[in-house]
């Protein structure tokens, strides 16, 4: 399978420097943490995304993100790419992120588009979880 150099680099950087690339977890019970987990082991990928937000005036800013992904190289690269897109964004901005943004950033081949869809689902779910707590 031919991966783009971007996927390979992202994947390798993420596994070699997990802390720098926001691999990890927050306590999901914390009120300022939103957790999303999508996918299924039987399908070959599971993404867990957590955002830590801070209220600023009328909006909420994503101050920190942690993730863990079980899946192919593209799934791991997609999560990692998404994390970068999320840091420092407001929730409104984060809701605007679409899977195609990840596809473009990583030059994902058509057979791996579902990885980006999963990534989009993970942030939607994390925001939903966070908003329910507020």
């Amino acid at each position, binding site marked *: 399978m031919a991966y783009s150099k971007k996927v390979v680099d992202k994947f390798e950087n993420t*596994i070699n420097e*997990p802390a720098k690339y926001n691999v990890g977890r927050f306590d999901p019970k914390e009120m300022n943490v939103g957790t999303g987990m999508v996918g*299924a*082991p*039987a399908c070959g990928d*599971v993404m*867990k995304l957590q955002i830590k937000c801070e209220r600023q005036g009328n909006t909420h800013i994503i101050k920190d993100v942690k993730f863990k992904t079980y899946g192919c190289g593209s799934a791991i690269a997609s999560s990692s790419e998404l994390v970068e897109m999320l840091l420092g964004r407001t929730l409104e901005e984060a809701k605007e992120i679409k899977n195609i943004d990840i596809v473009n950033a990583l030059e994902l081949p058509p057979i791996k588009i579902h990885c980006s*869809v999963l990534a989009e689902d993970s942030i939607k779910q994390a925001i939903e979880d966070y908003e329910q707590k507020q």
Partner: protein
Amino acid sequence: MSTPINLPIYLDYASTTPVDPRVAQKICDHLTIDGNFGNPASRSHKFGWKAEEAVEEARSHVANLVGCDPREIVWTSGATEANNLAIKGIANFYQSKGKHIITSKIEHKAVLDTCRQLEREGFEVTYLEPTEGGIITIDSIQEAIREDTVLISIMHINNELGTINDLQGIGTLAREKGIFFHVDAAQSTGKVEINLAELPVDLMSFSAHKTYGPKGIGALYVSRKPRVRIEAQMHGGGHERGMRSGTLPTHQIVGMGEAFRIAKEEMLQDTKRIESLHDRFYESVSKIEEIYVNGDISKKVGNILNISFAYVEGESLIMALKDIAVSSGSACTSASLEPSYVLRALGRKDELASSSIRFSFGRFTTEEDVDYTLSLINHAVERLRELSPLWEMYLDGIDLDTVDWQTH
């Protein structure tokens, strides 16, 4: 003094092997104007006679490795064609005798797809389940036999697992019932001893390129005693006693002959060395938590080791092991996203099936290769598990089967 390691390291010998340099030399001697380039079917001049002589010598080498008469060897383009010729050949020739075939779910696609084709032509096929350890039991065959069963086709060594089936037992049963027995032995030559003089097997498929010969050449053993007839699938000049027409590719045939001659000569030392590499590898890799060997380790060859690394996805592991050439499942299916059908047939859960990697060792694998691979695996598995939400859940004591997954 350890030899310098050449990267990437090739651990995919079950997929194909490099041609042995001695074989390559032999091939080169049968190509050009200064070499033995003639058409073995030319009866009217020395070029033809010399080529025929080389082909017949090669046939003896093949026959010698598997303990049969050279006249029982039919050249084909590989094991895929040999499987097609055997199964369709028997089914077509003996269809008045019965239209039921028994095979297994863990056969190579060359057998499974051939059987599917026969189903479309009106044959009925029973696909046997293997045991959890990847073996086809005699009992399961016994149960599947019907009045109209005409052929049993079971592989010798499974290409994904390395598990070995009991040919003597299956063949004895087949003979008792008067059913033809075909064996796909593409993975066997040079790895385990085969003596067709004693084995109750009617047809057996071989491949050159799994045994340090060239690609594009193989053979089908067709028993003479008892006599087995097959209907040709390739028509033309009536080569190979009418069973397989087409000008014989002398250079490939001598390549296969030389490869099998060397296999006969060096099998004992080769397998002994490879088994010790396997044991070295297994001993170390089994120290990693939550790994599962696929296929019964007490009933398999030493050159193939299939392992599932739980909570790590196979494709990402292969990507993390970029300096190691291995495959997940068989090479024919690793381009698709489906977990291996062989592992599924063993009853492995999808996630374990898709966490699997097949390591296969060979003649040119060194101890250094194995040790370096082990260090990379330890590192990659540790890193990918650190990244795996499933591993985290496992460490937290959560049973993944009880989680309500959001499938997409």
